[in-house]
């Protein structure tokens, strides 16, 4: 009987102990790893820089990214390109490029050109001399219209043959810009 009483008591006390329901409002979570913005700046010697920008402020929300290209490229010109990746859900915006460059052995940008008379070349590399690609050069030739796709892969196979199929890994960013060379 004593045991019965004590076990009942233990159970009852447990009931009270575990009922620590605090009615405080939960705090919002601002996603730390969301990438909202990709900005590619193409600068030719002496010219105005051209900006390709994709911005998706609601991250994985229903709104699609807003894509903007500030101007056309010139024929037979070499541009030096830099890529900046931001998380603008935080304030101030977090520069994710720094993280990507720090973990350069686990990241790589890929440039896909379709319909344009242009070529790209990697401008920066990881410690094993495999490409990273937050910096690059783009060289145009004749006038044409088409698109450039920028893809950032996380944990790709490194080294790879430069194609997405061979690299594998998972996609962190993929944005296609319609571009004209005139």
């Amino acid at each position, binding site marked *: 009987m004593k045991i019965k009483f004590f076990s009942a008591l233990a159970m009852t006390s447990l009931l009270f102990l575990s009922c620590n329901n605090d009615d405080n409002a939960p705090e919002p979570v601002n*996603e730390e790893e969301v990438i909202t913005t990709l900005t590619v700046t193409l600068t030719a010697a002496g010219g105005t820089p051209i900006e390709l920008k994709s911005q998706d402020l609601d991250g994985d929300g229903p709104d699609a990214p807003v894509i903007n290209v500030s101007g056309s490229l010139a024929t037979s010109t070499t541009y030096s390109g830099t890529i900046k990746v931001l998380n603008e859900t935080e304030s101030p915006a977090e520069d994710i490029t720094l993280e990507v460059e720090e973990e350069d052995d686990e990241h790589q940008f890929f440039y896909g050109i379709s319909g344009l008379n242009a070529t790209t070349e990697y401008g920066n590399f990881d410690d094993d001399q495999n490409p990273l690609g937050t910096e690059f050069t783009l060289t145009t030739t004749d006038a044409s219209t088409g698109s450039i796709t920028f893809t950032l892969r996380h944990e790709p196979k490194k080294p790879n043959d430069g194609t997405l199929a061979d690299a594998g890994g998972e*996609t962190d960013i993929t944005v296609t810009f319609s571009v004209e060379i005139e």
Partner: protein
Amino acid sequence: MKFYFVVLTTLWFVLPVFGQECTHSVSGEIIDFHDKTPLKGALVLVVGQNTKVTTDNLGKFTIKGLCTNEIELEISHPECTSQFLAVNTNEKKELKISLEHHLELLEEVQVIGATQKKKTASSIEKTLQLQTLERMSSGSLGDVLKKIPGVSSLNTGANIVKPVIQGLSGSRVLILNNEVRMQDMEWGDEHAPNIDVNVANRITLIKGAGALQYGGDAIGGVILIAPEKIVAKDSLYGKFLANGATNGRGGNATLELVKSFENGWFVKAQGSYKRLGDLEAPNYVLSNTGISQVGGSLQIGKNNFKEGWEAYYSYFDSDIAILRASHIGNVDDLITAINSKQPNFIGPFGYTIDNPSQEVTHHLLKGNYFRRFEGLGKLKIQYDYQQNQRFEYDLRRGESRGVPSIDLTLRTHTISSDFKIDADNQKQLKFGIMGRLQNNAADPSTGVRRLIPDYDKYDIGAFATGEYNLSNQLILDAGLRYDFSRIDAKKFYQRSRWEERGYNVDFGDLVVEDFGSQLLTNPVLDFHNLSGTLGLKYDLGGETDISVNYALSQRAPNPSELFSEGLHHSAARIELGDLRTKSETSNKVALAIEKKSTKWGYNVAPYVNGIDNFILLEPSGVEFTIRGAFPVWSYRQTKALLMGIDASLYKQWLSNWRTEHQVSYIKGSDKTLDRALINVPPIRLLNRLIYKRPQWNGLRVALESNYVFEQNEFPPNITVFSPQVNENVVLDINTPPPAYHVLNMDMEMTFKMLKKDDFTIGMNISNLLNDSYRDYLNRQRFFADNMGRNVQLRLKLYF
């Protein structure tokens, strides 16, 4: 008692020396505890003497010529547990003794192979006995239950296995661990039941919602995991079981110890450990598919016939690696994966559990008390507490590396009580009430928006069930249950999502606070659910019976169906719940004809299940983010119709040879959209050939063939825009894989170590021919083949 016995026996040896006259006598009446009818043929024995008598037709007896006035009587009856009674014949001459003359207690201590009393008369049930469970002690609950016709499983790889009963799974299947309804976030497809099969002495599966005492929302069915009933006798025994597996290059072991006492006290402790490395498909290593699992339970109590109590605690922790190749970035990655037929990441074999992975810990604490009332019935009171902690780890960058993406703690308290009136052998009535309080807390430090919000949930339920023997052949059973549940959630919505879903129009008043891009809302949702069942069972004679059962059941939507909102990284999909989701209502009729004889037997069980407001999750489109396009999986309600048949047949051809055959077929249609339902199990055909030779150390060899047809009814695929190829492509997300055939083999022999038949050695080979195949109900079918051949060696020692 022992002391008393010794004293009494000593007295008996000593007293005659004094030449005492043997003139004492005692008489009495023995009656049934339940209905107070006299018991004839009961044996009354004077302990320590040769004197014994049996009761007459009126349950009466008289013993004369006793040499002492202090005696001990042992009263026994073929269908009862014996009772001991100390009597002083000087004080009391007329005894009235009530014996437990009822099958119930027998049922509780029954041995393997014997028929068990069913939980409901007319529902379709199947019990897996200890012997079967021990052969599969390395498997998961879902693997074990697949032995039953009509049961399949929804897998995420080989280690996360959710049972599917007649096409239904998740929240529609209730799992009771030692009479405690598991509250372990059963809502997710990649959330396996947090139970170690080694705690079970037997597992009973009830198809459909006929067992109302466990809940009214078991549209799929109920799984009862029962530990061993410990008999009140002085004893200390145990069991050790170990398995070694070639696939995964690991194994598991379990140890169990029981100490019981004559006076009803008992204590049982059990623990098990499982560790496997990467599993292997026939052609490659399934990188990052290992598992580490620890389970344990402690049971202590006192069980007498009239009253008893028990305290039970069980612990379960599993750390499961998720196939590395199944973690993908966006829809293009998914298209690539589907087209490549080969995982995009294959590494060397290893034991490490890397991310993506999940770690789940479940604590279950229970206390119960029962008391029987003479000539009336049995009262039970139970309290249980469960705590389920779930971490899900994704591949993350920078400082977030190693931080879980999902961190949920679910705490549940339940108090329940029921009363069973079973005094009358012709009818039985049971009624009960239940109250439950549940709290879910999502830790914001994950840095990922909560997929499931913080919430409090309150449940109240009441039921009454009855069973009535209309004649010797015909049993009627019926039940009614009401459940109320309220969910009070604190949920953040992205403003864009809130508006896209139209919630700003319908639920504008739920917003508590505006954080700019996010809104804090406080939905409070009430659900009233009614369920009922009515059935008949008729004994046709010749070991054949027929039963028919109708069940109405209603299920309130779970938090995932209501609140999911966001990118599920591990599945590379955006999952969207719906605040407008209502309870679903199922009307199911099931028929069964069963014959069970030693020579042969069969079971044919067709059913029809019409479900209004059936909640399903299916791919509905894509949404674009900077990471590319993601398939959106939305919860939707529809009118569904599930029709199927489960059939089995066995025949003992010769004394050593036996064959068993099973087939399950189910057709699921979406009546609203007039098309097939998603994730309906394809036809399964199972054939088993068993050879037994008891005189050769209990040799048993079984060869099993499993043929799974291709599912040719499935919802249409969706078209998505692929940035990579810059055009719309068909996402082959619903197309089922082709049919497959897998052969398994099992053999075992039993030896003597210390006592007879205490040591069993066995070998099991699954996927004997090392066939490559994929299964429609495996969520990793897009990425990799199922497991290849696995040879397992098992040892079992009773002591």
